[in-house]
């Protein structure tokens, strides 16, 4: 073992002081290997919602999927099996725990009435009913069976749909099916910008 300068010095002095019975202590001191917070958490493999590299992530959640344990995120780490990111994540992917567990999340349906300057709570059923009525009213008012030259067009120019790019394929398909059935032409998406 290469003698670094200091260990040599310490060795000589220690020899001298070693005889002092006062300081010798037999209790071994070694690091307790700390149980990892993720060692018993349940793992869910998912995909990061941010960019289109589609990094695989492992979401560690509380509890072992027992019924009475409501899962909540404990830690998010890269999925080493995923061939593209191989366990790595960027600064956004690594902070996904704060995206899942975030006190700014919207928790209840709200409505802003015309002219009002604040949000009011509204129940889901009330929201659904009102929205459905508005959709029907606007569609009936702006629906065009035929255009000026008498050709059937069956389109509704009064309603627009702007979908996000972190919605899943299946949601997009349902959106296209439902909106095209309403005759919506203003069907746009973040893919455009």
């Amino acid at each position, binding site marked *: 073992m290469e003698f670094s300068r200091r260990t040599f010095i310490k060795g000589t002095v220690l020899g001298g002081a070693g005889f002092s019975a006062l300081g010798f*202590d037999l209790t*071994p*001191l*070694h690091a307790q*290997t*700390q149980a990892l917070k993720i060692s018993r958490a349940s793992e869910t493999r998912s995909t990061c919602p941010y960019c289109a590299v589609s990094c695989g992530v492992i979401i560690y959640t509380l509890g072992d999927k027992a019924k009475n344990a409501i899962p909540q995120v404990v*830690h998010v780490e890269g999925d*080493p099996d995923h061939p593209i990111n191989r366990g790595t994540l960027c600064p956004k992917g*690594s902070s996904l725990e704060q995206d899942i567990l975030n006190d700014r999340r919207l928790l209840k349906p709200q409505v802003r009435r015309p002219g009002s300057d604040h949000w009011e709570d509204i129940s889901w059923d009330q929201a659904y009913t009102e929205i459905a009525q508005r959709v029907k009213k606007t569609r009936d008012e702006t629906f065009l069976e035929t255009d000026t030259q008498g050709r059937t067009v069956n389109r509704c120019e009064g309603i627009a749909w702007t979908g996000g790019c972190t919605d899943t394929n299946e949601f997009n398909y349902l959106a296209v099916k439902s909106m095209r059935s309403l005759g919506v032409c203003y069907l746009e998406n973040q893919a455009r910008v």
Partner: protein
Amino acid sequence: MADRKALQVEMISAHPGPVPGHGVQRNLEVCKLVDTTTCIGCKACEVACVEWNDMPFSPTTFDNTYQTMPETRWNFWNLIKFNEHQKEDGTIQWLMRKDQCMHCADPGCLAACPADGAIVKYANGIVDFNQENCIGCEFCISGCPFNIPRFNPETKRVYKCTLCSDRVGEGLEPACIKACPTGCLKFGTKDDMKFIAEERAKQLRENFGIEKAGVYDPQSVGGTHVIYVLHDATDPERYGGLPKNPEIPWSYTVWKWLFKPVLGTFALFGLLGVCLHYVTAGPRRTQPEPPRKGERNG
């Protein structure tokens, strides 16, 4: 817990007597390789560290740089230093270097630390703070050649990167290294990392025209368990103050481990001296002394 193969301890701060279990088992030396030539300054390592260690978020303000904060903090253990370095031909080289504890083989913090068991160096090279034994004297901050340990005023304890001793103890790689998107951070035995680093430096010199590319593994602290591949190994200072020749102050080496114990014994001589004086020259009594028994007066 005790039965599981714990991280084998090699050095303990301010600990009397030999380190228990020293040299009892073979142990590979781990090492973190930071290849600054492929670092993209994305800060995934900073986030992974804060997330793994559940550290509280601290307020930061904008100060004319991409760097998250000027220096690491007690709750922000590794920080990418951004430096816009102007090369001779006037072009700008945007250097990014991950700054964190270097896990020296001959740690200045451990040398300076007066608290028994506050700083432990494992046989695999990781230097770890043990907050229960830390007395908050901040000597380690003075001892560290890389200005790494950070003091938390509330808890009166000092904190730094632990190279994820908990994860490594369980066989995992550190969180920052796992997260690093471009693989600029690598983890493995010291020999493997040194080999990869030298290979990469050679590749840079020969194929990418970066003549002074080299590996940073300063021997003045006995070599470190965090090594860098630098564009210019002859001038590490340009990477945000990476010391060219990191030195542990003499106070915690020659003074603390040689003169102090020696002078300590000199001070005891004072005690010895007075005892000798007492038994030889004897006390000086008020005059006139009364005659001693059986002695003729006069």
